[in-house]
């Protein structure tokens, strides 16, 4: 197991004992790190063109979320935050799950985000991010069981690691809606 803490893993919890994932980072939760009987909620506030990728294994109780910014990493560059990039984050997040007790066949994906906030023609960031994430998941044969992507509004997303439910609130809406 990894004894060195990776710089892009969220370790600090909010006052409520939850994780908020900044761009290019990820958070992971399994049975080992449940403190005081609180299964943390993992969330991202203000998803625009970025993607919130959730991978989880219900049976073995491992969940993780990454906050993806760009579709593909440039080759030949030193990369300190691989979860910035869809083509790296999907693979690495899956490996993290496997390293923390997940079984490959059990892993399922949830994909949220990829909006187009500023409406000008050459703005394909959200669209490209969504495509790239889905391509990578497909190539790893990981099934997407729920997707809420596209559109022109920002989203807030919360994943409950206790019951593996996903809730989304778009800008302008008053309440979170459970979508999975």
């Amino acid at each position, binding site marked *: 197991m990894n004894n060195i803490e990776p710089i892009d893993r969220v370790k600090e919890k909010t006052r409520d004992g939850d994780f908020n994932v*900044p*761009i290019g980072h990820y958070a992971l939760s399994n049975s080992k790190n449940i403190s005081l009987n609180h299964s943390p909620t993992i969330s991202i*506030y203000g*998803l625009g*063109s970025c993607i919130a990728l959730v991978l989880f294994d219900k049976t073995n109780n491992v969940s993780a979320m990454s906050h993806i*910014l760009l579709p593909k990493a440039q080759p030949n560059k030193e990369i300190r935050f691989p979860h910035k990039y869809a083509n790296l984050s999907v693979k690495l997040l899956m490996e993290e799950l496997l390293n923390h007790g997940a079984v490959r066949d059990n892993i399922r994906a949830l994909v949220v985000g990829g909006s187009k*906030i*500023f*409406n000008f023609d050459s703005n394909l960031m959200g669209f490209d991010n969504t495509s790239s994430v889905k391509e990578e998941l497909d190539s790893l044969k990981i099934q997407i069981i729920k997707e809420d992507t596209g559109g022109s509004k920002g989203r807030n997303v919360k994943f409950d690691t206790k019951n593996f439910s996903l809730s989304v609130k778009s800008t302008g809406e008053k309440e979170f809606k459970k979508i999975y």
Partner: protein
Amino acid sequence: MNNEYKKSEEFQLTLEQIDMLKEMGNIGSGHAITALSNLLNYEIDVSLTTAEIIPFWRIVDLFEDPSIELFGIYSEIHLKSDLSIIQLFTKESIINLINFLNVDFKLSIEDLRTVKDLDELSLSIITEIGNILSGHYANALADLLSIKLVPNVPTVALDSLNAMLDEIVAKYSQISDYMVLIKTNLVIKDIKLNCVMCFIPSLEILKNLFKILNIKYDINL
């Protein structure tokens, strides 16, 4: 010569370079503010410019409340690399602006649900404000640096700051984990106007800017 370095993990800009960026921000925003001031016939009460280099995931920390809904007016300037200018207004500020400039009817907060719901006149007022501000900002910098800087027509969004910044952060952190943000806060008390003007140069253009301004450029990419 001031050789102190401001360390930002692995990224370094000298204090002199930061001061120069702040000065550019002052000059750019100064011209934009004068134009706005003349348009509205009101003096600007507060104007404060800061320049920061910051890791891409912490750019939202430079703003007070990244989760509230704001109007963002965004323009790009295409040079060899890119520059972006974005202006951020609270809903109240936009309402005050529109109602101040438009004598025919008055908008209220309920009318500002989404950009798509906005009537044509209000949208064109907002876009024009963006045009004036980014145009004057860019002109001032173009004069200072003797280069051509023409912003394209701005696009308007109404969303949380976090969501709006994603696309900008994506563009500028394709090759680097650091972003430069030159930010000016301005307030006009009498019409309750609050605006934040942001100027974001790519690291590539930053090297050129420093070169032009004859300062030692020592950026670790």
